[in-house]
């Protein structure tokens, strides 16, 4: 992929070691303009280290990286970047309005303060001291700081960890709006649901390696086939013997049938048990795809 000064992130062979721990192992990543990319992985997979390297907060041990054609942490790159970091808190004694006003002054063309207060639903507590806010409210203020500068590139490091559903949906909504306007969003998460709901592209990290990197539907397709959920009189063993069935799981009165080919499996299921009911057919979840990818990192890495 050709990279220019307009390419938000272009990294090759990024390696970072902390003593004997390899946090990043020769990572290659190019993020073009205007995508939502989710970096997915368990704790310790290297997601945060990768983000810190992109921001210039951590120097890579080796490898090349450029942010909009600049080295990470250079002022021109920072002017185009907004961040929401994990484990990073703001001073207690300022109000959200004061925090956001201060941050707006760092950027050349910031968004309107009232707009951001509205977008992030801060109005109710915009003039309370930061230390009196709840955890979810604090995260909303931190998110507002990430977007106030009207940046071309927004990093969100586990933005919704520990958030209530309502705040999470608000945040997702704003992220979608940002991407619609041609901005680039990178978010790390260990919620598959979040990556699935938001991202155009999913990068799966495991043990400092990128073990999969593809558009979201393609990652989901790794699991293949479909999942049939129903209640039936048939035994698990009988279900397993149906054509194209990969696995069967019983949960309460339901059974979940993993199939490679929903049509053939359904036909024979209905033939074997005409009384089958409460039938639902779903595409496999990202979670199943993820389990499969992480279980076979070697093979996927060769594919990638």
């Amino acid at each position, binding site marked *: 992929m050709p990279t220019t000064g307009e390419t938000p992130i272009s990294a090759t062979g990024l390696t970072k070691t902390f003593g004997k721990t390899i946090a990043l192992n020769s990572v290659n990543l190019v993020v073009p303009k205007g995508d939502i990319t989710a970096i997915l992985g368990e704790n310790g997979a290297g997601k945060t280290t990768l983000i810190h390297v992109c*921001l*210039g*907060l*951590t*120097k890579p041990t080796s490898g090349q990286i450029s942010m909009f054609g600049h080295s990470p*942490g250079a*002022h021109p790159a*920072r*002017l185009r*970047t*907004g*961040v929401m*970091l994990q*484990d*990073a*808190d*703001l*001073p207690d*004694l*300022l109000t959200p309005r*004061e925090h956001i*006003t*201060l*941050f707006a*002054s*760092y*950027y*050349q063309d910031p968004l309107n303060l009232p707009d951001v207060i509205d977008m992030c639903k801060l109005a109710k507590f915009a003039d309370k*001291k930061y230390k009196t806010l709840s955890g979810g409210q604090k995260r909303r203020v*931190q998110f507002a*700081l990430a977007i106030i*500068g009207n940046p071309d590139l927004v*990093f969100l490091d586990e933005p919704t960890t520990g958030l209530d559903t309502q705040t999470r949906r608000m945040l997702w909504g704003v992220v979608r709006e940002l991407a619609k306007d041609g901005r680039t969003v990178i978010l790390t998460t260990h919620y598959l649901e979040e990556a699935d709901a938001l991202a155009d592209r999913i990068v799966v990290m495991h043990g400092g390696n990128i073990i999969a990197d593809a558009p979201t539907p393609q990652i989901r397709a790794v699991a293949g086939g479909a999942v049939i959920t129903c209640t039936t009189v048939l035994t698990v063993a009988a279900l397993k013997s149906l054509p194209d069935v990969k696995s069967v799981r019983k949960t309460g009165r339901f059974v979940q049938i993993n199939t490679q080919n929903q049509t053939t499996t359904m036909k024979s299921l209905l033939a074997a048990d005409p009384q089958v009911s409460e039938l639902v057919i779903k595409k496999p979840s990202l979670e199943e795809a993820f389990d499969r990818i992480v279980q076979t990192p070697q093979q996927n890495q060769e594919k990638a």
Partner: protein
Amino acid sequence: MQTLSLNAFFNECGAEILKAVRAPEYILPTLILPVAFYALFAFAMPNSGTSGARYLLATYGVFAVMGPAIFGFGVGVANERDRGWLKIKRASPAPAISYIGAKIMVTLIFASLALIPIYLLAGFRAQIVLARSDWFLLFGLHMLSVLPFILIGLTLGFSFGSNGAVAVSNIVFLGMAALGGLWLPAFLFPAPLQKFAATLPSYQLAEIALAIVGASSQTGAERIPLQNLNIVAIMTIILAGLAIWAWRRQRD
């Protein structure tokens, strides 16, 4: 670009002032303690006379500016670093210079607020007579005195967590004051302690201030204020190196 960083600087100053004013439990002791001590030792103690008040005007002025500098930077920076705030700042286009610059501005404001009541007591209550130019010279010196203590505060702020920084800042603050001869003149110290006192910026700055107010030197030695100033300059350079080293070390 210029107006952008200027705007950021003014906003940063406003934020620093608000933070300080909203934490009166930290700021009040650093403002009130020096003038209270000055009143106590210059007037309330027996055999305190104008010469004592003159002497203590010089040394308590240095003491008064130490608090805002050491605590503002030592505890303030440690706290904001601890909670990850400095990490967000470093990732954002916040100019580092305006963050430090705003903290220096606030330190100077609070240093002058700590100094002025001492000057008023000295001038009106103790009837100390100084030429107007000497008052300004004294004020200039006392304000300049914040510099080495800011650098010490920065080094502490970059080196300790927020709890540790409170403890260490207190030790450094009290040590600099007591051993630098700001409370009791150094000539009352045993000889080895007198030698040690000379290695402290608080002592060297007090010597220059004493020369300005026309009081005798702490150790009774022949006074050469320019030499004291040179020593302070060298100490400041060393402390700046130390602060830069501490800053680099905590970055990764």
